[in-house]
């Protein structure tokens, strides 16, 4: 089975987020870059599928030179080869352009059975790229899959479970198909030391704007990069919510104990009624 995974590198949103002085983008100075956490689930699912059905896992990532770290991590986890679409003209492209370029490279690969990708990227949180790729390739997609129930490579079918409000659905789709991954569908493995060593020797192809032939995709140089985006960010604000931080603690130790419990409970209910006016 030929399994593709579309991965990207993202800003680590556990960090403090600040806006640059022009006010329209996030300050990435000193930012830690990590594999998009949802893509870790995608890579893990791909490797597990390969372990079950045989075949190979191919990583596809678009991004600047630093994205190589993320590609190496995926290879070290157990993927077999990678395509890195790297060119400054792609920087800050919107989800459409990104989807089109990634799809065009996928079309140049040999046949494939299934594509996994993350449900969204945690910095921009656009949640569209994977679905655009599927549309561009004219294959079905199943989003937010909580569990891949079964893959039948010879019968060319996949069955997935997807959570909906108040329950779940089981969806059957023909292959090839693109699946977007939320968290918790599996336990992403860590890259082992031998894995990291091996990753260095795995095939890695680098693709640039010249290889992509943007014009043939209906993408003029102007439609790539920030200028070509269909939607522009004009301003970014950091939400500031002042919290009251009125915490009731115990007297002898931090936890309320014994008699303190009842009075703490009473006090909290009182402030929620009198001060916060929410009950």
């Amino acid at each position, binding site marked *: 089975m030929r399994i593709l995974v579309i991965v990207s590198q993202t800003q680590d949103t556990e960090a403090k987020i600040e806006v640059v002085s022009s006010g329209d983008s996030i300050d990435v100075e000193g930012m830690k870059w990590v594999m998009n956490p949802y893509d870790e689930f995608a890579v893990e699912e791909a490797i597990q599928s390969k372990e079950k059905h045989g075949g190979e896992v191919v990583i596809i990532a678009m991004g600047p030179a630093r994205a190589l770290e993320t590609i190496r991590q995926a290879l070290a986890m157990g993927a077999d080869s990678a395509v890195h679409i790297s060119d400054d003209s792609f920087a800050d492209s919107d989800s459409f352009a990104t989807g089109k370029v990634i799809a065009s490279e996928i079309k140049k690969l040999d046949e494939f059975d299934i594509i996994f990708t993350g449900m969204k990227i945690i910095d921009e949180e656009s949640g569209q790229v994977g679905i655009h790729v599927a549309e561009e390739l004219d294959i079905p997609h199943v989003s937010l899959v909580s569990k891949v129930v079964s893959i039948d490579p010879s019968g060319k079918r996949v069955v997935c479970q997807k959570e909906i409000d108040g329950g779940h659905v089981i969806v059957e789709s023909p292959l090839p198909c693109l699946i977007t991954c939320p968290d918790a569908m599996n336990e992403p493995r860590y890259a082992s030391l031998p894995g990291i060593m091996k990753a260095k020797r795995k095939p890695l192809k680098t693709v640039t704007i010249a290889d992509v032939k943007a014009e043939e995709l209906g993408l003029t140089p102007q439609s790539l990069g920030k200028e070509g985006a269909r939607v522009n*960010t004009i301003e970014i604000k950091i939400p500031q919510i002042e919290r009251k931080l*009125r915490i*009731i603690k*115990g007297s002898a130790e931090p936890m309320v104990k014994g008699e303190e419990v009842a009075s703490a409970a009473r006090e909290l209910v009182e402030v929620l009624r009198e001060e916060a006016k929410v009950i």
Partner: protein
Amino acid sequence: MSNEVWIVADSKLDGSIRQVTFEALSEAREKIAGKLGGKLCGVLLGSGISSHAPELGEYGAEKVYVIDNELLKNFNTEAYTIALSELIKKHEPSIVIAGNTVFGQDYFPRVAARVGAGVTMDAIKIDVTDDNKLRIKRYSHSSKAIPTQVFHENYPMMTTVRPNSFKIIEDSKTPEIIDGGVEINPADVKMKIIELKTKESERPELAEAERVVSGGRGLSSEDNFRYVYELADILDAAAGATRAAVDAGYCPYDMQVGQTGKAVSPSLYVAIAISGSVQHFAGMGSSKVIVAINKDPEAPIFQKCDYGIVGDLFDVLPPFTQNVKTLVSEG
């Protein structure tokens, strides 16, 4: 292109229409349609849903396009994508809006790609600029940033909107009901829903709730989640959970609040035995009042809540719930 503004209805499994649709109609009427001078229209897609069309008129829809087709049963992504894309190509609206539900997240980007639209997801504010471009605000960076985004020359301009972001304001109209006249070729629908399992819940839906009571890993069993449900029911609140609690099997997945799960913005959020991770806060950090009960004084949640008790939930919750009960029953 027409200057119609479309709100695509989000239906529940029983065909009834979700609140988010009425919220979007109310907000788009005031902030968009008025300014564009365009008609506010509803779009209703589904199987056996036609009778719900007039409901969209109660919130200002002057026209409702209906596509009632057996293939649209159970939210089949491919069928919906075809239906909405064809309808857009036929009538060329200027703006198309739907709710950012599990389903909206699924088919809306696909429709946008098919019709060549610009699209954003999960907007919390919508209006138009002086030159009639859609302008939205949404969350990014695990909800630590709020970008304002403006659309370009790609039409229609499409966005999903976050439930519970706008006030519902009635404006009763008798809408013109129009058969969308879109054919769906069964051969183009290759995906199949082979099972659909739902459980009725008496509690309010998370995304729409005014109050939410959530439990975390500290509840330590499915059975103990009754503490969460009991308080939720007294407060007429929705019940939520962290991913750690869902993962451990203490409660169903659709209760997950956070970056992956539901985004909520209630007036009261009670977090029981929840540490306060970035990912959990991405889904509830904008709640008006946050209350935390946690036994660890160092838990990050105590740095970002309004009220709290450092204590064992099994000690604190029974008297707390009892006090709330007394208060609520006194009115």
